[in-house]
């Protein structure tokens, strides 16, 4: 039982980390990014390439991949998504347009990775030794990833609540029109937040690649999980992200060890629907959306 719960918590922490970037992108920049998982896999491939080709530790890899992802996502927002933001008459139209555009982007990125790396599964051995933790044996790489996840989460929370820029970002999330009235540059804040979300998913990709096998076409699974967590937790809500991620991870681990490992996705969806039917705005979302 302890083992299942511990596994579930680690899995949940990973889901929360993966979903953190998406909740920023969707909550603030209003872009429903369906190519989100593809960025995660791209970062995983980058980390794999750095580690196996150049013997660069994934922890150092983070320092290389994350800033690169930030710049890349900023460029994507400016070049690809700004025309859609300008064109959209209202928020709903932008959501549909962004879904369609990032959906096309999914295929472009996925196809490029397939052409570069083929359809095979990749993994590499990093910190792959068992350690004792709370009386249970766990893999060191998972524990390290969880530690970094917690650090990243705390840093992000502090940045959003304690700094001026973070307050501006939260203001845009609440009401982009009113935010303009208090001299916040909304397009700039949206672009930066979208880029920040992209940097976070890249960090998640590097961390995930240390303990999971991945392939060029496994991005969709991560997009799905991230979407479920974001919607369950309430869009744009960091605490909701954490709680929903943990709930998802725990339920998955418990179902896998006590019912049937083949039914984890069914459980994900059941949970997702149950939350939406009871609280349409998510666990921590505001009622008016």
């Amino acid at each position, binding site marked *: 039982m302890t083992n299942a719960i511990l596994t579930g918590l680690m899995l949940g922490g990973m889901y929360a980390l993966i979903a953190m970037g998406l909740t920023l992108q969707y909550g603030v920049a209003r872009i*429903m990014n*369906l190519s989100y998982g593809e960025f995660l896999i791209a970062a995983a491939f980058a980390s794999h390439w750095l580690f196996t080709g150049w013997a660069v530790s994934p922890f150092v890899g983070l320092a290389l991949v994350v800033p690169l992802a930030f710049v890349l996502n900023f460029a994507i927002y400016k070049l*690809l998504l700004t*025309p859609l933001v300008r*064109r959209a008459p209202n928020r*709903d139209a932008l*959501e*549909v*347009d962004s*879904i*369609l*555009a990032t*959906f*096309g*982007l*999914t*295929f*472009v*990125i*996925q*196809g*490029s990775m*397939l*052409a570069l790396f083929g359809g095979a599964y990749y993994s590499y051995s990093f910190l792959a030794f068992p350690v004792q933790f709370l009386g249970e044996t766990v893999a060191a790489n998972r524990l390290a990833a969880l530690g970094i996840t917690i650090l990243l989460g705390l840093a992000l929370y502090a940045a959003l609540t304690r700094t001026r820029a973070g307050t501006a970002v939260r203001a845009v999330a609440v009401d982009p029109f009113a935010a303009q009235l208090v001299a916040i540059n909304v397009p700039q804040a949206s672009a930066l937040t979208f880029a920040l979300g992209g940097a976070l998913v890249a960090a998640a990709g590097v961390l995930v690649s240390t303990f999971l096998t991945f392939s060029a076409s496994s991005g*969709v699974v991560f997009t*799905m999980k991230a*979407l*479920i967590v974001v*919607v369950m937790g309430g869009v744009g809500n960091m605490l909701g992200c954490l709680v929903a991620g943990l709930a998802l991870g725990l339920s998955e681990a418990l179902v896998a060890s006590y019912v*049937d490992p*083949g*039914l984890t*996705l*069914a459980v*994900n*969806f059941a949970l*997702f*629907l149950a939350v*939406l*039917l009871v609280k*349409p705005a998510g666990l921590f979302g505001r009622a008016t*959306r």
Partner: protein
Amino acid sequence: MSARTAGFGAVALAAFALLALVPRLGNPYYLALAISLLQYTVLATAWGMFSGPTRYVSLATTAFFGVGAYTVAVLGEILPWPLVLLIAAALGAVVAAIVGLSTLRLSGVYFVIFTFGLTELIRQLVVWFEVNKSRVLGRYVFVNITQADIYWQLLALTAAVFLLGWLIARSRLGFALRVIGEDETVAKHCGINTTFAKVALFTISATVMTLVGAIMAPRWTYIEPSIAFNAMISFQVLIMALLGGAHRLWGPVLGAVPLTLLFELLSARFPNTFTIILGCIFLLIVYMLPRGVAGLLEKLSTTAGGKTTQRAAA
């Protein structure tokens, strides 16, 4: 008006009669191509029937297609063919009604997310059932259905879908859906039962998709979950309907025909970069043709023929 409708009906009837002769040409390649064209025409039109007026983006086409195909794989050898089709349609309708009732009350984006994963969910459930209960993964389909039979069934379904779409557009349901598409809150205040209207149309559209899956199933002799629930179909149908223009009944055809031909060509010539090209086409459509070919044609016809009326109005 009625004379014009009758004339249009006669032309459509003649066109279908001509199309019914395709298998008589005796060229298996053209027959196969014609089957693909009809398959995507029906799927895209059915997609547009629901998503066009309501503007709910559904990514669940494959889910229903797969349910139809799998029904045939399980029951095809046991029961007579018309009964198999009937059961497939009923199953599709039930699944659609359940999905619709539980998700259509939600906001549009949540609907996209749910349908995005629905195919994967049903696939996992089928795999789980096959592995644990029937102890096989993959089934052989031995039914006495020729390629020409598949073609004629699809043609009949195409005719039925267009007739159905035409009738719905003229009914109270069609009007209700257009109001919902414009503004759902207004629709509610007008006393329209929005949930009923959406679920009804979603079910009709999904039943058609399920039938396409059932009709197409005999094309493969061997079916397994990854073949029947190939997520690519959802994406291709979405692109086709968007390119053609989902706000008109005849719009999706304008996207389905050229894109089916294009995909046929690309997957044969560039199998490795097919996905990249698909994505680029998709992006181009979203940026260049937000209202599809149908929207472009309407714009052209209004600027060409409507100049005088515009001036009069001004």
